[in-house]
């Protein structure tokens, strides 16, 4: 009997297919200094999200600024600690790891960042940058390190590796720097990589190279990647599954093709309509929504977060948070107005 988990994954035999699972992942940031603890205001950057990441899969995390996608990424690599919730890596909760276990965990989950010009230490050579994780994790034999650095550079398509090893970042282009960052991230042969807007600061004509590289890393290293972006166009190109985030919540999750061609949530639809398309004939009908601004993360509206901007909103939308329902295998939506395809429906979560 396979039971459907909230994020549209499956428990049971296929569960060992899942490398990372988030349950109720939450991050609240305190705002200002609350003299009285009860009056402490918080930014609910991420407010209880569930998702799964399978092996050999690229999961897209899409959303605008304020959606919480970068915060989620930083929690996954433990740059910041979750306020609540679990992050299961191969079944083990990493959200609360400390000390040596945390250090061990770091070999398995890595990250690449948006800014190619800040992502490398300007004083380190390429070789030193890529080698460092190995040194940190106790690979003592210099020959072994050399071998693995070369392997990582090869995989990042920096050829010939020997030519790059002694170079400094200022001698490299944006695309090359990003590849060095990728080499650094994969030198420990992690299971999961978080990619936070890895191409948005690169020239368009070289983005595809990096995106194709991510795909080949998935295929050849069996790497699972969480691809964070606000650009649905690149998400469509590179992600197997996509999760749409809005104000700290997941509003829609499913196979990319489905989510982007048959969006169920009004926000997904809004995003899709807003993305400019490189085709002068594409229909650019003005989109309807009462305001284009993403509201404040501090005073989050009760009920569905998207309700204030949703043209389809009903009274129930401002009263209760919508439950996540499954509309198709592996495709879930959090909206009061969407009917579940099968009878299975999660009880409404108390706000």
């Amino acid at each position, binding site marked *: 009997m396979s039971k459907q988990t909230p994020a549209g994954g499956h428990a049971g035999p296929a569960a060992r297919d899942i490398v990372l699972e988030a349950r109720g992942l939450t991050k609240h940031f305190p705002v200002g200094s609350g003299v009285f603890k009860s009056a402490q205001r918080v930014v609910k950057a991420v407010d209880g999200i569930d998702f799964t990441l399978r092996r050999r899969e690229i999961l897209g995390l899409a959303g605008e600024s304020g959606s919480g996608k970068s915060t989620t990424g930083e929690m996954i690599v433990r740059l910041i600690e979750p306020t609540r919730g679990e992050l299961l890596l191969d079944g083990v909760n990493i959200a609360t790891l400390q000390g040596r276990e945390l250090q061990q965990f770091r070999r398995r989950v890595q990250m690449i960042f948006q800014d190619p010009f800040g992502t490398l230490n300007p004083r380190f050579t390429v070789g030193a940058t890529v080698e460092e994780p190995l040194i940190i994790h106790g690979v003592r034999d210099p020959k072994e390190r050399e071998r693995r650095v070369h392997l990582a550079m090869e995989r990042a398509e920096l050829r010939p590796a020997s030519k790059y090893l002694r170079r400094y970042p200022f001698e490299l282009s944006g695309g090359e720097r990003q590849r060095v960052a990728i080499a650094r991230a994969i030198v420990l042969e992690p299971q999961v990589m978080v990619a936070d807007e890895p191409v948005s600061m690169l020239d368009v004509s070289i983005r595809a190279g990096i995106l194709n590289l991510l795909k080949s890393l998935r295929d050849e290293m069996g790497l699972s990647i969480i691809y964070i972006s606000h650009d649905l166009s690149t998400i469509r190109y590179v992600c197997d599954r996509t999760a749409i985030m809005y104000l700290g919540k997941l509003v829609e999750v499913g196979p990319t093709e489905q989510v982007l061609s048959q969006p169920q949530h009004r926000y997904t639809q809004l995003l899709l309509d807003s993305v*400019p398309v490189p085709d002068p004939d*594409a229909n650019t009908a003005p989109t309807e929504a009462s305001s284009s601004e993403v509201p404040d993360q501090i005073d989050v509206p009760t009920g569905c977060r998207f309700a204030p901007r949703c043209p389809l909103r009903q009274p129930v939308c401002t009263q209760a948070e919508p439950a996540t329902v499954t509309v198709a295998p592996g495709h879930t939506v959090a909206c009061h107005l969407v009917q579940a395809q099968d009878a299975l429906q999660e009880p409404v979560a108390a706000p």
Partner: protein
Amino acid sequence: MPLLEVADLRVQYQLPGGFLRAVESVSFALEKGETMGIVGESGCGKSTLMKALLKLLPANARVTGGSIRYKGQDLVPLRDDEMRRLRWKEIAYVPQSALNALNPVYRIGDQIAEAIVVHQGKSRQEAWERAKTLFQWVGLEAKRLHAYPHQLSGGMRQRSMIAMALALEPELLVADEPTTALDVVVQDRILQRLMMLQKQLQLSLVLVTHDISVVAKVCDRALVMYAGRVAELGSTRQIFKAPFHPYTIGLLNAFPNVKTEARELISIPGYPPDLSKPVQACAFALRCPFAAEVCHQVAPAPVEVEPGHVAACHRLDQAEAFRDAGRRRRTWEQSLAARSLAPMATQSAPSARKAVGGDPGE
């Protein structure tokens, strides 16, 4: 007579080592009420071109040739004070980042009103009323006039920049990547608004951007720049449906389209050339998979391929075949730049790697 006519414009930067030819023989015309997108990647010269139009070039840059005719008058020889009379009243500018352009210690309404008072001699009250109207045009509530720049969101700031630019009812609006830093929904709104205003006010618009999707959405015509030169110029339909220049072909195939199923995206290996070392050849030759002998020897001049559509390439007759070949990733690995080891890494076919000793992954 076209509203704006640029003829054979050349702009150089003076560097410690020598000269950098940022803009080389650029010519285009803009009719009244038209929108033109100047598109290209970093270093292509579009920012320099735009600054030349507005006479906002830095101290070490000079226009070394050509003309910029606005309503028939050449702007190049104009002095600063003469240009100041044109700026804002006739030619207005929307910068990329409002934070850089707005004074943080004055309210937005004050800044707009002041411009109106100074340039049009209206009273403060009239100016403020006008500011309210402008805000209405750009879709902002009048109360926002009392805010300081840092109190507004990025989208609101950008709208207020547009309002400010429109304050003196210019005829030509030059916008520099006006929505690049904004979220996609906000960007869409602002672009829609800009298009609406453009029609209502009969504005002519020059939009400088690296994003061809924005050009496809907003502009009637497009100028594709590469290494300071015109690669291709035509209506957006002509450029998108029948591109002639290999760089344009490459660019179009490098942009993902969210509405269509993922086809193969290509990337163009190599780098733009060093503009301080001019060569006789076509600037794109090293990265061009279709380059022939002549391409490495002579720089092509723009040639009209159909009415209103020019492209600078020696092999225009092969354009159709190139368009076809340009869709495939392998094609782009044939250029000299891709094959030489010095520039960016090349892509090797995944199938080749899989054939060697099974699946190397986990």
